């Protein structure tokens, strides 16, 4: 199964195994990772699973939908060009090795 890496604001990182068909957010919450709140549980409504995608990976992610784009305007930490909601990143085999940085805050 593909593994992905979350880098915390303090520089520490967690490499976690994903299971088939789950989103980066689901993988993070299933592993009890700090820094991904996902208050709405993956329904694209809350913007609390915000991540900064490592530049090397950005272009390899599927394009964002309008609702994700609108929610990113409301994130607690600054929205950057590489901001995404991790509930909208489905982990496919091609994303094995994906690196996501966590923001300072989610609310």
């Amino acid at each position, binding site marked *: 199964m593909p593994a992905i890496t979350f880098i915390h604001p303090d520089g520490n990182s967690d490499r976690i195994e994903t299971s088939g068909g789950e989103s980066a957010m689901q993988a993070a*919450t299933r592993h*009890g990772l700090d820094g991904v*709140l*996902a*208050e*709405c*549980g*993956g*329904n694209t*409504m*809350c*913007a609390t699973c915000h991540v900064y995608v490592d530049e090397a990976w950005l272009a390899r992610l599927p394009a964002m939908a309008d*609702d994700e784009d*609108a*929610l990113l*305007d*409301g*994130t607690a930490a600054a929205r950057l060009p590489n901001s995404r909601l991790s509930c909208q990143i489905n982990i496919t085999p091609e994303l094995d090795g994906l690196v996501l940085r966590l923001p300072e805050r989610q*609310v």
Partner: protein
Amino acid sequence: MSAPGSALSGVPHLDVDPFDMMFFADPYPTHELLREAGPVVYLDKWKVYGVARYAEVHAVLNDPATFCSGRGVGLSDFKKETPWRPPSLILEADPPAHTRTRAVLSKVLSPTVMKQVRDRFAAAAEERVDALLDKRSFDAITDLAEAYPLSIFPDALGLKPEGREHLIPYASVVFNAFGPPNQLRQEAIERSMPHQAYVAEQCQRENLAPGGFGACIHAQADEGAITATEAPLLVRSLLSAGLDTTVNGISAAVYCLARFPDQWQRLRNDISLARGAFEEAVRFESPVQTFFRTTTREVELSGARIGEGEKVLMFLAAANRDPRRWDKPDSYDITRRTSGHVGFGSGIHMCVGQLVARLEGEVMLTALARRIAKIEIAGEPKRRFNNTLRGLDSLPVTITPA
């Protein structure tokens, strides 16, 4: 031919009335019975299917094409009965119509908008706590859980000062009306005329202050996102579901923190847990206990065959305490990872006002924990009975300043 829920489909029949006063007084043993009887049950009393386990509740919520809302999210089937009021354009609608109206309310209540109102909501919470500290002994329902949302939400909507006393009674009617034709529902609807008249009036554009959520909804009609006749009905959704729900959410949180002093102490030690403490109270108490869906086709759900046009009752509260999903489900733990709970629902109909609720809950618990050392229950809590909402009518408390 087989009767609905017959032995053929293996669905256990239960003689349980989840809209009975005895049930409301202590729903937990019945929730367990419903969960353990099977993934899908049949309730003979109201001739409906029921799901009480997390997996099935989540599955039903996330398959709106099969389990629709357009035939009503209460027991009444809009295909067979005339609804007691014009149906909601969002709650009681299905895609594609729902997609359009939902987008409008999502925009009006977005994270960006919450950032704009946060300071105002937080200042009002501080003011409320000032008043409570003057009193020391008070009713945590009327003086806190009701008084706080009433001090901000009607203003945020842009409502006139006059007539706001109709708001909580109107919401109470709405949530009672989802239930079966029992005394609670019948009496609520019989007494609803003045509340309905007030609400219909306030939904009109000229009665909503500029800049408020209500005016923002009407502005969406100018943009062409909705029609001018749809706008008032969408404002009505905020009046129906935006106040009493948060009253019960805040009640739940205060009631939990007063009952479990160890959790209150944890919150006092780390005030950043306030938002989680509120969220966990929504899971633990589930202020919105149930909703129905109606099947649009014959469907198999976890081995049970359900015919077309059947009502399915989702026990959100039971799902939120399903041991298959939650570790120590009956413990209130403010550090719990609550993501995935169905207290706000799930899927396309998940509470569109959830961000408002969380903001109110967070800033109120923050203000309380900062300035109050102890909250003690000072008298017998009294329950408020409603077919859908779980909450208290009265919770006498005494507080000790920090």
